């Protein structure tokens, strides 16, 4: 005998809000930060690494995951919810390959994930997923793409965006400082954005870079540290020249 759940949990409030969805967005806001930056030929996903417990194997706590050979996803929010959604996306990617003998496009998989998230806001007995996702990949023409989904099921393409803790600050930084970059400069921009609120160093930052030839590559701690040092040096130099110039102007 199958139990049927016909009582909805996500219902409208008198003034038109879906509070469960809004509470889910709160859960997302409590999750660790994830930043996505799209360049001319490169896409970068940068995430804030939660301090791993001493005895925990850090390699098993991954916030950047592969959906298929050519598509990657980072999330902010409830890790367990993300695992379920990522599994569904992986199945959809393979099912698409089987049905159409082609690899799925980034916007198709984004629409699918967003569709699943929306279904859980309009079904009986379930709650919305407590995650927002950043989905990256390349379209058949070779142009890089970055999409974002959230618990309400909306999805849109972005040049650069952030989700999770302090994402508003990071997004404001990106709006002020975004320029079209390529290669290493795109990674630098992502790290600069992360460093606005995250402690510098490979202990707290994880970076994954995707480009057309090499696909996705997660940077080693050494590479991250090296680039973080470069970014900090540039920042210090910029501060120094600003201070130096003001000093000179002040001198009579």
């Amino acid at each position, binding site marked *: 005998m199958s139990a049927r759940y016909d009582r909805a949990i996500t219902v409208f409030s008198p003034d038109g809000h879906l509070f469960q969805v809004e509470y889910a967005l709160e859960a997302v806001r409590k999750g660790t930060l994830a930043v996505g930056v799209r360049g001319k030929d490169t896409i970068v996903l940068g995430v804030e690494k939660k301090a791993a417990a001493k005895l925990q194997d850090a390699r098993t706590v991954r916030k950047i995951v592969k959906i298929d050979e050519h598509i990657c996803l980072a999330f902010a929010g409830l890790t367990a919810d993300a695992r379920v959604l990522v599994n569904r996306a992986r199945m959809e990617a393979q099912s698409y390959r089987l*049905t*159409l*003998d*082609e690899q799925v*496009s980034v*916007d*198709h998989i984004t*629409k699918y994930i967003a569709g699943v998230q929306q279904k859980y806001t309009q079904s009986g007995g379930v709650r919305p997923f407590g995650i927002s996702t950043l989905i990256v990949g390349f379209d*058949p*023409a070779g142009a890089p793409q970055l999409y974002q989904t959230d618990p309400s099921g909306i999805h849109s393409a972005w040049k650069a965006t952030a989700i999770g803790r302090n994402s508003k600050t990071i997004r404001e930084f990106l709006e002020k400082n975004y320029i079209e970059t390529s290669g290493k400069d795109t990674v630098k921009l992502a790290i600069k954005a992360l460093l606005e609120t995250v402690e510098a160093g490979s202990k707290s930052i994880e970076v994954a870079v995707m480009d057309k030839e090499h696909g996705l590559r997660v940077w080693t701690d050494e590479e991250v540290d090296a680039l973080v040092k470069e970014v900090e040096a540039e920042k210090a130099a910029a501060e120094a020249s600003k201070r130096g110039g003001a000093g000179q102007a002040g001198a009579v």
Partner: protein
Amino acid sequence: MQLSWDLPVSASGGPIRNYDRLPLSSELAGGPQGFALPDVKELDAFERQVVEMVKPAHGTTTLGFIFQGGVIIAVDSRATMGSYISSQTVKKVIEINPYLLGTMAGGAADCSFWERNLGMQCRLYELNNGKRITVRGASKLLANTMFSYRGMGLSMGTMVAGWDHTGPGLYYVDSDGQRTKGERFSVGSGSLYAYGIMDQGYKWDMPVEEAVELGRRAIYHATFRDCASGGTVSVYHVTEKGWTKISGDDVTELHFKYYPQPESHPAYATPVL
């Protein structure tokens, strides 16, 4: 569930007359996925007989090939019911959409219905994904459908031809679920004759007019030798701008055009000495 084996009961409630075998779950009243099975001793042999009965003759010649200038599709237009020619004016190229063509060989209804159904799936793909479907994807959708009806008597041997962002595409898809990518195909009872002409005259670098003429000549020769092929030869050309119908010629007129002197025809027989 209590059952008396003296009188097994079928799904419709009447007795199952074949006492040689135990009743199947689908025959018992209230079977979850039940449908009435035929009341015969050997089910598999019976199904094979049915499929043979339903399967119409593949009387046709169709061909397609890719060359430097795109894809050429050429077909005849005869339909036969046994030895009766039921039509000389059948449209054997189905225009799925402005850049995709499907050919018809086998059951006319199966071909035209499922290729129109494919057209619907392609259109839905365009609307849902904001871009045209590839020839690869379209042929796979058709092959999936054919596979899901495998063994149920569908009869279709088609070529899906078109142009997408990867260039020209040609796939052979049939009702057994086979899907093969290729550069040269001919399908139908006259295909062997068409292959003879097509393979002998094919050059990747040939200009468009020569390719069109090759397709036309190959179909003509197939209609000459194969009794189940005839009528008119239709030739289509597919480029990145889509497909265009190049010509439709009556095979009898082609016969006299190619061989105005009877002696010049390859099938001309010298009198018995």
